C-alpha cells in the first residue's frame, strides 16, 4: 500500500485542483498543499538522493528542517536549487525536478558509492589521494586529477546562468515588539502587545498563522485550535498597529536588536503583479523581540532509519491533519517520549491502521497506555526498532527487546509489517535566534534538550522555545511576554482554555539503538553513528571538530535534525555528559536565504551612476564614455572609423594647435568658509594659502599624516574667508572626510565650515592658443586679457546670459581657463563655448587626450600619487613649506621615506617607436625568458603628438640620476620588450611659456 489522500479533513481547498510537474511527470494537488504533501498524496515516497552514498530518501519532516526532499524549482530558464519540497507551496504550472541523481531518481548510478561502504568513512579523503611523490603526478597533480571527479559527483542541485528576471526588495521596519513565530504563544504575545498600543510585527515562516495549532487537534476556548488561531490572526489583522508577515522567516539576530527576515512574497504564485517583488528582505529594528519559535522533533538513530517511509511522528500528524494525507496505511511508531502517542491517535482518527507503538521506555503511564489502545495499537514497551525492511520504501521493520538504561538489545527479533514508520526522539527548542543574539545555550537534563540562554539582547521567550511544550503553558507565557514587551502590567484575566491529550514533556535519554547496519545521524550528509565514533577514535571530540571532521550538521538543514543526537553519541563515546562535549553556537542564517533577497534592490543595479551636467550632450555628440568610480566621463569623441589612439591624438593635437574643451565637472569641489579658513588651509596643504590674494588660485599638495602624498588640486580664494578647493575626482570623498575629521576632532576651535559643492558647479576647461580668443568672443561683463585675468587669476562674468566664474589655470600646459557655472546652466554654457569656438576649430576632448597632454607636461595624477609615493618621489618637494608645520610634515622625513632606492618619477621615450603599456616594468638588462630585477614601472603612457613619439611616465629607482640613460621596458604579460630612454617627466614646454602666454 502507499500513502494516499484522506476522504475528508485537512486545511486544503479540495474544490481547487492545482496542476504541476515533478521530474516531468504531471501531478495534481489542492490549493493549500505543499509540493511534499501533494506528491505524498499521489503516492510518491522517493523524493531525493543523499549527498555521499546517493541513498534513496523520502520525506523526513513536513517543514523547514527537511534534509532529504530537496528539489530544484524551475521558472523558465531560471533555476532555484535545493529547496525543501515541504516549503514549496504548489501553484498551477509549478515545475520541480529532483537533484543529485543520474539518470533518474529511481535509478541513480551514484548509488554505487554505497558499495564503498566503510572505505568512505568520515574524513577518508584526508588520508588518501595524495599521489606519488615523484613523476608527472607529483605535487598537487594527482589530487587535482581525483578532485576533478569528486567535484562532479558532489554538490546537490544545479544553479543556472540565466539572469533572474525577478525583483528583490529590502524594507526597513521599526517596531516596539517583533514576535517571531505564530503558534499559540506567538499569537497571544502579539495580541497582548498590540492591545497595549505597541507597534507589533508578527512573522511566521509558514503560509498560515497558527503553528502547532494548525495540526495539534487540540481545542482552545471550545473551538478547534486551528480555528482559534485563525480568529486571533483576523483580530490582529484588524489593528493598525500590527503588521502581519506570513511566509516570513526571521533568519538573523544582529547587534542592536536588528533582525533580518525574508518574506516570500510571490513564490507561491504563478506570477508576480507589476512591480511586486519575488522576495522582500525585512531589516527590522525591534524594541523587544518575542521568540516564540517552537521546537523541532528529533529523529532516533537506528539502522535503516533513512529508508523512505521513515518519518518524524509529528510530521505524519501534520500531513494527516493539515493536508489530509496519510503517509501510510499500516503505521508503526517508534518513540522515547509521550508525544508520539498523540500522533498515533491523530493518524488513527485520519483513517490509518496503527500496527504498533514501539517505546524504548519500560514504565509507560496509564494515560499513554490508554492512548495506545484508543489508537488500537499494539504497545511494545521496552522495545526498539533495530532495522527497517524494503527497498525504496518501507515494507516492514524488526524490533527487539531493549533496555533503556544499558542500551542492550535482548531476545528474539520480531518483524512487523508496516508501510510507514514514524519516530520521535524528543523535542529540541528552536533556540537559533537566541543563540545568534550572543549567548550560550544550557542543557536541561529533564527535557534532554538545550534550552535558550539568558538574553544578551532585548528578547523574551515564550512557549516551546523555552522548553514549555504544552499549549496551555505557551498561551500563558505568550501573553506574559507580550505584556512585558509592551510595558504593560501582568494580567490576571483568565487565559484561553486548552483541551488536549495528556503527555509528559520529558523523554527517556535514548538517542541511538546500536544494532547492525547503517544508522544515520545526519541524513543529507550521510553521517552515521559509526562516523561519529570514528571521529572520537581519531580525537576529533569537541563539537566543532566533530562537525568539521564528519560534516555532521553542515548540510542544508544545518543540523536541525542531527545536532543533539550527534552530540549524544559523542558524549556516550567520551563517557561525559552532553554539555561537556560542547554546544553549537548558531550563526545566521536560521535557514538558507536567497542571495537575491540580500542584494535586494541592488540586484541589477549595484551602484548609482554619477552624471555631469553635460552628460546628455556628450552622449548625443558621440562620446565614448569611461566609467571612473561612479562617474561617467567622455573618453574620446571618436569620428567614424577612428581608433582610440587616432581620436585622442587628433583631439590633443587640435588643442595644442588651436583650442580644445573638456568637461571637468567631476573634479571634487569643497567650499571652505569661515574666519579661520586660510589658517586651516595652511595646516592642510604643504604650501601656503593664507598669503593667497582674493581672486587668485594656487596649486596645492596635501600629505597624509604619515607623510606620504595624498591629493593635489587648485584652491581658489573667492573672498577673504571663502575658498573653493578642488580635489582629484577619485579622492573627493576622502579629502572631504579628511578635512571634516581635523575640524571636528583635532581643531574644533577653528571656525571653518567645509561643504561639498562638487555638484553645484559645472566645469569646462578650455585650452589652447586660441582659448582666450574664444572666451573673449562669448564672455560678457569682464575682460579676459592678461591684465584682467593673469595666470591663476579669477574673474566673474556671463556666458549665454548666465553667471560664470573663470579661473586661468592649466593642466594641458596650454593657455587655458576653467569656466564654472551653476550646474543647471552647465550645458547652456558648454554649448555657448562650443558655438564660440567653431570659427577656431575648437575640439571637444576626452580623458585620453587630457591624459596625453598631462603626460607631455609631466603632471602627476592618481597613478603616481598612489598612496606609496612621497612629494620628493614626485619632485614636488618645492611645495613643502619650511615656514610652517602642516599635516604630514613631522613624518615625511623618516628614513624609509628618504631612502635613495625609492621609486622616483621620470619620463620615458620608446626608442623602438612602439607603443608602451601602463604597468610595464623597467629593467637595466633585458631578459625576456626570465625577467628579473625590476627598477620600476610605467604609470601612464601615450603617443605624444607634440613630440611625435611614444612616451610614458614611470616610477623608477634612482629617478633623476638616470636621466639621459638607456633602459628597457620589460612587459612579459604583454610580451612587449624594447629600449627606452629615461628623461625628465617634463617632456613638453618645460618652462611653461605656452600657458603663461
Amino acid at each position, binding site marked *: 500500500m502507499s500513502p494516499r489522500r484522506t476522504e475528508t479533513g485537512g486545511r486544503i481547498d479540495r474544490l481547487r485542483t492545482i496542476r504541476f510537474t515533478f521530474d516531468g511527470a504531471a501531478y495534481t494537488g489542492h490549493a493549500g498543499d505543499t509540493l511534499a504533501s501533494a506528491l505524498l498524496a499521489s503516492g510518491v515516497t522517493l523524493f531525493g538522493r543523499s549527498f555521499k552514498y546517493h541513498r534513496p530518501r523520502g520525506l523526513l519532516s513536513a517543514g523547514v528542517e527537511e534534509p532529504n526532499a530537496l528539489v530544484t524549482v524551475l521558472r523558465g530558464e531560471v533555476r532555484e536549487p535545493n529547496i525543501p519540497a515541504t516549503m514549496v507551496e504548489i501553484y498551477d504550472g509549478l515545475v520541480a525536478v529532483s537533484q543529485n541523481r543520474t539518470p533518474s531518481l529511481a535509478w541513480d548510478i551514484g548509488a554505487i558509492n554505497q558499495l564503498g561502504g566503510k572505505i568512505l568513512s568520515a574524513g577518508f579523503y584526508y588520508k588518501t589521494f595524495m599521489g606519488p611523490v615523484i613523476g608527472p603526478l607529483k605535487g598537487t597533480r594527482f589530487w587535482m586529477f581525483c578532485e576533478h571527479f569528486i567535484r562532479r559527483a558532489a554538490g546537490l542541485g544545479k544553479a543556472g546562468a540565466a539572469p533572474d528576471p525577478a525583483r528583490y526588495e529590502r524594507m526597513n521596519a521599526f517596531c516596539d515588539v517583533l514576535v517571531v513565530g505564530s503558534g499559540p504563544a506567538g499569537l497571544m504575545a502579539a495580541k497582548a502587545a498590540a492591545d497595549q498600543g505597541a507597534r507589533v510585527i508578527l512573522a511566521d515562516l509558514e503560509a498560515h498563522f497558527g503553528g502547532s495549532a494548525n495540526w495539534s487537534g487540540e481545542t482552545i476556548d471550545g473551538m478547534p485550535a486551528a480555528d482559534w488561531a485563525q480568529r486571533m490572526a483576523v483580530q490582529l489583522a484588524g489593528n493598525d498597529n500590527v503588521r502581519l508577515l506570513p511566509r516570513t522567516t526571521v533568519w538573523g539576530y544582529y547587534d542592536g536588536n536588528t533582525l533580518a527576515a525574508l518574506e516570500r512574497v510571490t513564490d507561491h504564485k504563478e506570477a508576480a503583479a507589476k512591480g511586486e517583488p519575488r522576495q522582500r528582505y525585512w531589516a527590522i529594528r525591534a524594541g523587544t523581540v518575542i521568540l516564540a519559535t517552537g521546537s523541532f522533533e528529533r529523529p532516533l538513530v537506528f539502522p535503516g532509519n533513512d529508508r523512505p517511509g521513515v518519518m518524524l511522528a509529528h510530521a505524519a500528524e501534520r500531513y494527516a491533519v493539515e493536508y489530509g494525507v496519510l503517509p501510510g496505511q499500516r503505521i508503526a511508531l517508534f518513540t522515547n517520549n509521550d508525544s508520539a502517542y498523540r500522533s498515533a491517535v491523530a493518524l488513527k482518527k485520519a483513517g490509518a491502521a496503527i500496527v504498533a507503538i514501539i517505546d524504548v521506555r519500560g514504565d509507560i503511564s496509564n494515560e499513554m497506555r490508554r492512548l495506545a489502545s484508543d489508537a488500537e495499537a499494539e504497545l511494545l514497551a521496552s522495545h526498539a526498532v533495530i532495522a527497517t525492511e524494503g527497498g525504496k520504501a518501507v515494507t516492514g521493520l524488526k524490533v527487539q527487546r531493549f533496555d533503556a538504561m544499558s542500551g542492550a538489545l535482548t531476545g528474539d527479533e520480531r518483524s512487523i509489517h508496516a508501510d510507514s514508520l514514524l519516530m520521535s526522539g524528543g523535542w529540541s527548542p528552536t533556540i537559533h535566534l537566541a543563540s545568534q543574539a550572543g549567548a550560550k545555550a544550557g542543557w536541561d537534563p529533564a527535557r534532554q534538550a538545550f534550552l535558550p540562554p539568558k538574553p544578551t539582547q532585548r528578547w523574551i521567550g515564550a512557549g516551546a522555545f523555552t522548553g514549555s511544550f504544552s499549549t496551555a503553558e505557551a498561551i500563558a507565557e505568550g501573553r506574559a511576554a507580550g505584556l512585558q514587551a509592551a510595558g504593560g502590567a501582568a494580567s490576571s484575566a483568565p487565559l484561553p482554555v486548552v483541551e488536549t491529550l495528556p503527555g509528559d514533556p520529558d523523554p527517556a535519554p535514548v538517542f541511538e539503538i546500536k544494532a547492525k547496519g547503517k544508522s544515520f545521524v545526519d541524513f543529507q550528509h550521510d553521517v552515521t553513528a559509526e562516523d561519529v565514533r570514528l571521529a572520537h577514535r581519531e580525537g576529533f571530540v569537541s563539537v566543532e571538530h566533530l562537525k568539521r571532521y564528519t560534516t555532521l550538521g553542515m548540510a542544508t538543514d544545518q543540523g536541525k535534525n542531527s545536532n543533539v543526537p550527534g552530540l549524544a553519541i559523542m558524549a556516550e563515546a567520551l563517557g561525559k555528559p552532553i554539555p561537556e562535549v560542547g554546544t553549537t553556537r548558531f550563526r545566521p542564517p536560521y535557514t538558507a536565504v536567497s542571495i537575491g533577497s540580500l542584494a535586494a534592490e541592488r540586484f541589477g543595479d*549595484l551602484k548609482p551612476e554619477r552624471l555631469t551636467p553635460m552628460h546628455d550632450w556628450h552622449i548625443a555628440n558621440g562620446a565614448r564614455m569611461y566609467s571612473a568610480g561612479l562617474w561617467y566621463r567622455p573618453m574620446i569623441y571618436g569620428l567614424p572609423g577612428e581608433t582610440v589612439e587616432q581620436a585622442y591624438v587628433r583631439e590633443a593635437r587640435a588643442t595644442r594647435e588651436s583650442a580644445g574643451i573638456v568637461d571637468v565637472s567631476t573634479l571634487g569641489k569643497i567650499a571652505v568658509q569661515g574666519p579661520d579658513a586660510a589658517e586651516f588651509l595652511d595646516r592642510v596643504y604643504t604650501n601656503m594659502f593664507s598669503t593667497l590674494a582674493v581672486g587668485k588660485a594656487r596649486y596645492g599638495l596635501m600629505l597624509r599624516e604619515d607623510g606620504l602624498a595624498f591629493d593635489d588640486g587648485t584652491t581658489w580664494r573667492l573672498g577673504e574667508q571663502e575658498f573653493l578647493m578642488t580635489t582629484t575626482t577619485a579622492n573627493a570623498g576622502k579629502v572631504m572626510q579628511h578635512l571634516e575629521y581635523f575640524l571636528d576632532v583635532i581643531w574644533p576651535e577653528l571656525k571653518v565650515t567645509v561643504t561639498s559643492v562638487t555638484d553645484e558647479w559645472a566645469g569646462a576647461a578650455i585650452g589652447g592658443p586660441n582659448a582666450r580668443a574664444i572666451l573673449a568672443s562669448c564672455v560678457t561683463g569682464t575682460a579676459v586679457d592678461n591684465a584682467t585675468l593673469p595666470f591663476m587669476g579669477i574673474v566673474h562674468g556671463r556666458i549665454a546670459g548666465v553667471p560664470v566664474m573663470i579661473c586661468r589655470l592649466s593642466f594641458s600646459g596650454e593657455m587655458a581657463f576653467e569656466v564654472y557655472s551653476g550646474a543647471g546652466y552647465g550645458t547652456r554654457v558648454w554649448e555657448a563655448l562650443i558655438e564660440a569656438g567653431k570659427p577656431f576649430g575648437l575640439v571637444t576632448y576626452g580623458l585620453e587626450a587630457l591624459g596625453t597632454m598631462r603626460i607631455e607636461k609631466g603632471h602627476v595624477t592618481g597613478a603616481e600619487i598612489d598612496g606609496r609615493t612621497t612629494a620628493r618621489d614626485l619632485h614636488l618637494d618645492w611645495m613643502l613649506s619650511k615656514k610652517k608645520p602642516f599635516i604630514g610634515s613631522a613624518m615625511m622625513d623618516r628614513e624609509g621615506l628618504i631612502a635613495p632606492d625609492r621609486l622616483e618619477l621620470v619620463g620615458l621615450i620608446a626608442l623602438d617607436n612602439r607603443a608602451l603599456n601602463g604597468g610595464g616594468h623597467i629593467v637595466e638588462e633585458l631578459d625576456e625568458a626570465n625577467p628579473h630585477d625590476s627598477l620600476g614601472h610605467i604609470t601612464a603612457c601615450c603617443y605624444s603628438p607634440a613630440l611625435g613619439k611614444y612616451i610614458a611616465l614611470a616610477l623608477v629607482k634612482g629617478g633623476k640620476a638616470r636621466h639621459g640613460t638607456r633602459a628597457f621596458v620589460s612587459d612579459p604579460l604583454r610580451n612587449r620588450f624594447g629600449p627606452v630612454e629615461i628623461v625628465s617627466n617634463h617632456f613638453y614646454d618645460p618652462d611653461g611659456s605656452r600657458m603663461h602666454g
Partner: protein
Amino acid sequence: MAEYSAFSLLKNALAGNKDWKPAWRKPDPKASYDVIVIGGGGHGLSTAYYLAKEHGITNVAVLEKGWLGSGNVGRNTTAVRSNYLLPQNTRFYEHSMKLWENLSHDLNYNVMFSQRGCLNLAHTPAQLDDYARRGNAMRHLGVDAELMSVDQIKRLVPALDVSGSARFPVLGGLMQPRAGTARHDAVAWGYARGADRRGVDIIENCEVTGFLRDGGRITGVSTTRGEIRAKKVALAVAGSTGHVMQLAGISHMPIESHVLQAFVSESLKPIVDTVLTFGMGHFYISQSDKGGLVYGGDLDGYNSYAQRGSLPIVDEVMSEMLALFPGLARVRMLRSWGGLCDMTMDGSPIVTTGPLPGMYLNCGWCYGGFKATPASGWCFAYTIAKDEPHEFNAPFTLDRFYRGLIIDDKGQGANPRLH
C-alpha cells in the same frame, strides 16, 4: 603512528575502522619546554612542525585556549595565492606557495591544495594597467602571472556576466594559475598530526593568562592549566594579538582587531572553477569540493573580538556577487561566520624577534593569514631557532612603521580597515 594511504584506508575499512588512532595526542603540559608556541591555529602549529622538522627542536608545546584550529585557520575562505604587488610580500608568499605545492606529501595528510588559479577581474583600462604592473612585478620575481582576455574569462567561468551592459563590465583579468584553494581544517589537523608525530605537545583548552618574567625577560606563561616555563615564548595568536600583548604589558600595537565575515552557499554542482575577485568592490569567491560557493568581502570595519558580523556587509557582499553572477540570485546563502583579523597599519604582517627579550612575535596577518600558513611557520621557526629573521621575513619587523619602511600593497596608509 600509521601512515595514511589508500592501502591503510582499505586495511582499516576491512577491520571496521576500529584501529584508527587519534590524529594527535592530548598530553598534559610539562613544567617546562624549550619553546612554547602560544596559539594552536595554523601558524602556531606550522611553527611547531617546522621547529621540529627543520631545526630539530622538539621539546615544544603549542598552547591553545580552545579547540585546535578554532581561530582563523578554520574560518577563512581557503584561497592560496602569491599575487602581491610589492616584492617583500611576493617573495614571502611565493615561498609559501612552494611549501603548499608539496604540503600534502610533507605532512602525509591530504590538505586538498587545488591549483585552480586565482583571477582578479579588471573593469577599467586603468585597472587593467594596475594589474599588469602587479603581474609584471610577479613575473620579475619568477612568479607565474598572466593577463586573460574577456573571451578566455568567459570560457573559464561561463556563469560570469561579461556583457558590456554590466554596470562595471569585465575588461580582462590577472590570473595566477598556480594559486588555488586548500581544505582549511585539514591544514590545521595535518600540521598538528605532523608536529605531534615529531614529539611536540599540543595542549588544547589551555588559555594563557599571563607571562612569567625574570627581570625583563619572558621565561614562561601562566595558564588555566598552570605555569609553564620555556626558554623561548612565541606568539602566534593573530586576531587576539592586541589582547595577549596586553597580558605582557604592551598596551599599544600597530594593530587593530577586525571582524571579517565569510559565507557559504548550499551545495551546488560545479559552477565556479577558480578563485575569482571583483575589481570594483571587495568580493572574492571560489567553490569547495563539496559544492558550496565560498565567498566574502570587506571587513565589517570596526574593532571587534566578537566573531560576529553585521548586516550591511552581508548585503554588500551579496550585491557584488550578483553583479558578477546574475544567475545566482536564487541560490541560497547557507552559513555566515566571522573571523578576527589582526589588521596592521600597512596591511603586511609582523614576524620578528621580540619585542621583549625571550619573546617572538608572529601577527598582523590581515587577510593573508591562511595562504601564509606554511611560510609563516617556516620563517617563524627559523627566527625562533636562530634568533634572527630569515631573509623572507626580514622586512616584516615591528619597527618598520616608525622608520617609514612600510610595506603598503594597497597604498591606504595607517588606516587598518582599508587594507
